[in-house]
């Protein structure tokens, strides 16, 4: 809830600022931004080329010495990694470091001379809200060959939001906010590309192809630069500590409480999505005292929508002794909410 208010404040701020601020420069335009960005995007060729693994991806320069931010993917898993600049110059490259949790890798061009390449200032952490015009730059479908620059797409930001991903093949470990855009940016080989505001601010790195679990559709998203910025800097300067070792995300949901611990007997869970109807209420139990009745449908547990008996189980399982439990049930055509104190765990 707190996060939501922060977020909404942020959105409001964005709306206001975007309405009030003057454009960055007099020449701010999509055309100027494209001229600026194309020399800073690179095509990456590496391992892969079989079935669904594409042997190519995209990256963007983040230092004049040839540091490139890109997607952490099997493409980089090779000794013969090559990078082609917008003008057709080809370099060998090596992986400097990676932050798998953010799907981020930094690679560096190998060169005997000092390189003075154009680059993006990744430390200028621009943030933008829904409706902001964006340009997407990527080596999608490897359509840019030789000295051709990468492809440019345009659209607007649909939302900056936490992305629910479908479990399975396309799962990402990253769980923070992403930019969802209405341009079809996430194509084969596009990952590691960049999205910019139309007036030239670097906003984020185009992510892998994933499906939105809630709608079961492919989603076009980018990882925000304000999230990536710190890790990019740490890897370049060699002060990198992988977050991987610090914290392992919990893989299994705890099952500390069952519905019956509160006095709830649910209907038998026979369907893929059995609605969480209460079958009976144990006499004298917590929920009986709170006034719940058979046939009430549990719809929210601590503001999480209860889609089925399974989600009810997992939501109750997460509770800890002493937590407040806010339940909302639907009885006929009314929503009834009540609050309980979670009892000590029954071992």
């Amino acid at each position: 809830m707190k996060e939501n208010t922060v977020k909404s404040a942020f959105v409001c701020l964005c709306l206001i600022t975007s309405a009030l601020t003057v454009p960055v420069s007099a020449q701010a335009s999509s055309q100027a931004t494209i001229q600026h960005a194309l020399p800073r995007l690179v095509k990456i060729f590496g391992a892969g080329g079989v079935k669904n693994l594409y042997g190519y991806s995209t990256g963007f320069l983040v230092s004049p010495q040839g540091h490139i931010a890109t997607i952490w993917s099997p493409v980089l898993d090779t000794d013969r990694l090559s990078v082609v600049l917008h003008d057709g110059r080809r370099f060998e490259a090596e992986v400097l470091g990676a932050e798998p949790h953010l799907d981020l890798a930094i690679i560096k061009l190998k060169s005997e001379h000092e390189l003075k390449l154009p680059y993006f200032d990744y430390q200028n952490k621009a943030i933008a809200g829904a409706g902001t015009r964006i340009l997407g730059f990527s080596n999608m479908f490897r359509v840019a060959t030789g000295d051709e620059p990468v492809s440019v797409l345009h659209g607007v930001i649909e939302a900056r939001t936490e992305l629910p991903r479908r479990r399975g093949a396309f799962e990402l470990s990253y769980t923070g906010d992403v930019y969802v855009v209405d341009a079809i940016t996430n194509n084969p080989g596009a990952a590691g590309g960049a999205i910019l505001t139309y007036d030239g601010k670097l906003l984020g790195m185009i992510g892998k192809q994933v499906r939105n679990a809630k709608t079961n559709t492919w989603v076009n998203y980018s990882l925000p630069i304000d999230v990536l910025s710190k890790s990019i800097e740490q890897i370049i300067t060699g002060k990198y500590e992988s977050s991987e070792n610090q914290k392992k995300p919990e893989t299994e949901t705890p099952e500390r409480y069952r519905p019956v611990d509160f006095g709830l007997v649910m209907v038998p869970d026979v369907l893929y999505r059995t609605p969480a109807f209460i079958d009976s209420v144990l006499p004298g139990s917590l929920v009986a005292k709170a006034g719940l009745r058979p046939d009430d449908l549990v719809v929210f547990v601590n503001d999480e929508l209860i889609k089925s008996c399974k989600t009810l189980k997992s939501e109750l399982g997460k509770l800890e002794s002493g937590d407040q439990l806010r339940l909302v049930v639907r009885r006929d055509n009314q929503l009834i909410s009540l609050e309980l104190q979670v009892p000590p765990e029954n071992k």
Partner: protein
Amino acid sequence: MPHIISKSLILFALICSMQVQGLSAQNPKPDLEALEERAFKQATAFVNPSIVRIETVGGQDRVGKLITGTGPTSGVIVSRDGLIISSAFNFIGKPSSILVTLPDGRRFPAQIVATDHLKMLTLLKIGAQNLPVPLAVPEKEIQVGMWAIALGRTFDLDQPSISVGIVSALGRIWGKAIQTDAKISPINYGGPLVDINGRLMGILVPLSPGATGETAGVEWYDSGIGFAIPMYDVLKIIPRLNTGKDLHPGKLGITLSGKGDLSTDMKLDRVRYGSPAQEAGLKAGDTVIKFDGQTTKMHSQIKQILMRKYAGESASLTVTREGFSEPQTFQVTLVEKLVPFESGFLGILPQRTMNSQVAGVGVRYVFSKSAAAKAGLKSNDRILEFNQQKVANSEALASMVNHLRPSDPAELLILRDQKQLKLKVTLQSTPHSVASSLPTQALPSRTAAKNEQQKIKVGHFKDQLPGDDQKFWVYVPENYSPNHQYGLMVWIHPPGNTMESTILKEWKSICEQRGIILVGPSAQDVIRWNRDETEFVKEVVESIKTRYAIDSKRIFLISHANGSEFAFHLAFKYRELFRGVAVSASSIRDQPPETDPDFPLSFYFVLNANNPFNKLLQPQIEALRKMNYPTVFQMIKNEKPASDYLEKPHLEEIGRWADSLDRI
């Protein structure tokens, strides 16, 4: 409403003033891109309070091949007292409970009021008051090329998702929808499509020009082809939906001759029996000149009008008809469903005779437990009248019975032992089974020598059509007599194998016994049947019909394994020619046309239980029976390979089935 208008005026003024400011103050060159971006955001902010989030509980996890999403969807407030319109797609899983969250965070349980199955919208009701109703764009202001902003409330409660595009077309999907290139997907189905001022243009829904149904068009998500039902249409239907009754697309029941939407052949090819068109008095052969008051010269013009109409609505159809100098106008009331017609069944086999001198129809056989059996009809009775109408021959009797429905009463006047007798019958449905025994009708027999004398070819021989090199083989029973009508079995061989010797060996005796001629056309290339070879098969059948005495009521197709696909294709294409299809070791791929009392068609399926088609076929049998096609289904239970050809008991049963195709 005035309250909202004034708000919009303020916003309008705001945008204008900012544009002026932009021009004068900061920039020598107006930054159009920035102004537009600002306008997108402000349009969103303007309509924002009217976009709700919809969450569902329970329901199916998949609908057809589509995995239903579990996430929230969007809706738009359409009345101050809690009516919310959304896309029907958002409820395809038939959720057991629906919750609506307003942008201010208040939550309400919602109920489905009704669904519009034509425009794919669902109306919801929540118990809230004083809700903000958005402002709609007047119909004539919407133009192709205008900015179109698609909004949804699935990601975050506090900020709608935004996708920007333009209006790509108007009146799309047979006049139903605004098309936009903004990205439309489950993210914003049910949400609004607004103009640059934040006024409502329409409600986003998935649609498809070809398919219908709740999931049609979803495959086009985020493709640059998205649809919205125009708000002026939505507002028109809300009072109708609010009565709680679902709206359905209206059906008429006609087929035009000529193919394709651009065809200008406006002649009615078929008028479906029992449909509104038929009941209004339209007939095949009429030429449509006006529909619903509008002149129609092309198929697509009929579709444009029809596809916008709901069941229960009326329309007028003006046609020219042969024999009438003036155009005729008919009033039709469209229906939700064209009920498949089911012919009545008396339960007899008529005596086959080529002598038309004797009045009435002789009864050859009475099916047990049939309507005829219950009424006491017996073999050798003669039916003289049916419902007070003289019966000239078996074709006439069949036509009268076929145009009635099961459980319709009828009266027979029969002749038994030289006495006339009246019988009352109640017609039944044609059974999905074959009589377990059926005496053959006595056949006049001739010697092969006599046939040779008359240059009638009998026995097994190969043949070609004159001027055509495509081959076919024929088996005519040796004792063939031109004084009797024979059945005609058309063998469609499976791709890769003509099976000529097997088929001849297995069927020869049954053909002799039941009076059937067997013909086996060969595919041009034995590897496969091309669909354009239907013409050839038809020509072969016609040629046999002219050379031998063939009973047109007993021409049928048999096939095995994957030859069946072509056999069904033939049967559905030439309905006037074929009366039955019997296939073994196969399922049915083509969608059959609706039943028609003028062209009765029966099916016979036989399949080994361990054939992988088994699972596929069972629901198909159900579907055929639901369409009221008499459909026999036999399962073989033995250890033999699933693709083996049939054995005696089933061959004999198909023989009995074929011998009763002229049943009435």
